[in-house]
């Protein structure tokens, strides 16, 4: 095993790339859960974003249009969930699962003719002399625009929830929909918007996988990333900054295990591939002491709202 082949600069740079899809999806889901809705269909929305973005990217040749279509695709899937859970008041857990199963099937149907094709990928930004700096040039100034967009989004979500009136209403709806309803806020409308935002974020995350990180389409390519995003929201106890930390920690593990595989570590490949999932479980256990108090969880998370009751 040759550990010297692993360069810390590249490790950190690729960690940020590996974390970005999960960061986007987790951020969206956090907003949804802040509004009191538990959407377990992140995986399904992500993979639909991955395929719709990939198709749009291949057909038009523009990755930007790909990301745009992916956000629409993710949001459309999310609104399907929204109509079922908010209007038809179906069980959120079951509907989220259905969204994932449906998304996985539909995406591989759409992706039939797109296996093995390469799409135009996003170029890394060139910021002149900044990008040529040692270490910082690559880690801070050498990424594609979506990485910066995702970081910007972390800040925007944090500021939105903390400082704006709309953010306060959204949190109120998540903490007590009955109180929010009594105050005259439109619980269902707020939740629908949050759900659509979460879907768009998940779609962007999926498209980042198929257009930048891999960049190819393979069936089931999200491989649990959506579920890991859900775990990161719990890990982050519903705070935007901690979502960022969680996603980057997780990205670090993914990249590290890939590097160890290529460096020929004397650990079975299968154990390394399973490591991200095992680590997620361990993290869930470790944070349980904190989560167990239940103070951070939005109080009305997952509860259906019907105005007549």
């Amino acid at each position: 095993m040759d550990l010297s082949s692993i360069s810390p600069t590249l490790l950190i740079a690729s960690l940020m790339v590996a974390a970005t899809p999960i960061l986007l999806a987790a951020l969206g889901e956090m907003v949804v859960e802040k509004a009191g809705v538990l959407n377990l269909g992140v995986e399904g929305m992500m993979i639909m974003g991955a395929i719709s973005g990939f198709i749009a990217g291949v057909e038009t040749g523009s990755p930007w249009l790909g990301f745009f279509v992916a956000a629409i695709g993710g949001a459309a899937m999310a609104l399907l969930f929204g109509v079922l859970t908010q209007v038809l008041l179906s069980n959120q857990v079951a509907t989220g699962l259905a969204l994932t199963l449906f998304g996985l099937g539909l995406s591989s149907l759409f992706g039939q003719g797109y296996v093995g094709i390469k799409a135009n990928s996003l170029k890394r930004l060139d910021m002149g002399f900044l990008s040529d700096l040692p270490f910082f040039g690559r880690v801070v100034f050498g990424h594609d625009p979506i990485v910066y967009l995702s970081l910007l989004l972390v800040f925007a979500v944090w500021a939105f929830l903390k400082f704006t009136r709309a953010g306060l209403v959204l949190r109120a709806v998540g903490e007590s929909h009955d109180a929010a309803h009594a105050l005259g806020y439109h619980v269902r409308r707020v939740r629908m918007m949050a759900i659509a935002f979460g879907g768009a974020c998940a779609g962007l995350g999926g498209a980042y996988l198929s257009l930048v990180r891999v960049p190819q389409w393979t069936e089931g390519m999200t491989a649990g990333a959506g579920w890991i995003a859900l775990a990161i929201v719990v890990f982050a106890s519903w705070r935007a900054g901690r979502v960022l930390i969680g996603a980057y920690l997780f990205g670090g593990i993914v990249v590290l295990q890939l590097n160890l595989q290529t460096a020929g570590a004397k650990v079975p490949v299968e154990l390394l591939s399973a490591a991200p999932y095992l680590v997620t479980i361990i993290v869930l256990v470790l944070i349980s002491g904190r989560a167990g108090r239940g103070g951070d969880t939005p109080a009305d998370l997952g509860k259906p709202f019907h105005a007549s009751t």
Partner: protein
Amino acid sequence: MIRLERRPTPSRVWAAASPLVAVALTMVAGGLMFAALGKDPFEAIRTIFWDPVFGEFAWYFRGQLLVKAAPLILIAVGLAMGFRAGIWNIGAEGQYIVGAICGAAAGLAFYPSESWLIFPLMVIAGALGGFLWAMIPALLKLRFGTNEILVSLMLVYVAENLLASAAVNWLRNPDAVGFPGSRNLGRWEAASNPELIAGTGAHWGVVAAVIAVIFAQIMMTRHLMGFQIRLAGAAPRAARFGGVNTARLVIFCLGLSGMLAGLAGLFEVAGPAGQISIDFASGYGFTAIIVAFLGRLNPLGIVAAGLLMALTYVGGEAAAANLGLPGAAISAFQGMLLFFLLAVDVLSNFRVRVGRGVVA
């Protein structure tokens, strides 16, 4: 204006009718999907739902029906109990894989013995493997309060890697060259799970599924445990006051569903699949979630739902062969079915009122 008005108690009529409405709606939407793919929708629907049972080659397909339905029913019966109680084991796929690996490993340890004890030993090992795999989310939930949905699902991916390592490494057939995979259990009489009645597809898994359904039906309707499960799901607060031991319920529901999923995996690996191979995982554990809901979380309903879902598998394969319908269309179709079911369910809990109502 259309309003929804909550029914005092769920409508029994709609609870029974909604799966049928959902199936009908899925056929319509699925037909549109097939038409969009450039296939004749009527021919596609007929190939999937009619030909396997009544068509020219039905003698072949009917056998396949039980082969596909048995694991689905076996897994779904276990899952449904947990879902009733609000305990969400969605990692049945992982328990299915681990059950198959444990069962096959227990048998292969005694290769090439011809003792009759080997198959029963494999059954026990398979059930135990699934049980223990499901105990991980159960015990973590009880000890640390972790979410069983996320943990059981993460364990699916771990189980898939375990399967890959078993197939290429420690369970690999030492006499084989080329393709990775274990010895073929189907060709080793002591360990095989054969067709019991020729032409029906009925193997030991079907027998196990029948027993599981009967057992589950009696337990849910006649036994205190079944009452506690229903109570915990319908009114968690009342259940706590009523002295229901939640911890025992979690262990029971996750353990039983894991055990049944493990059994399904064992019967599959010793019978239809024949060996541990990298592509052994077939998604039964996830489809069983749809089966459980389609069957109204009721053991007898699950039998009907499992057969219907098996029909979409078998018919889907026929449609793929005859009409060139992509295989993925069937999984989209199955997902659609669950959506429509959840949507139609609104009618059993709410009344639709048209017109302006009084302000609540």
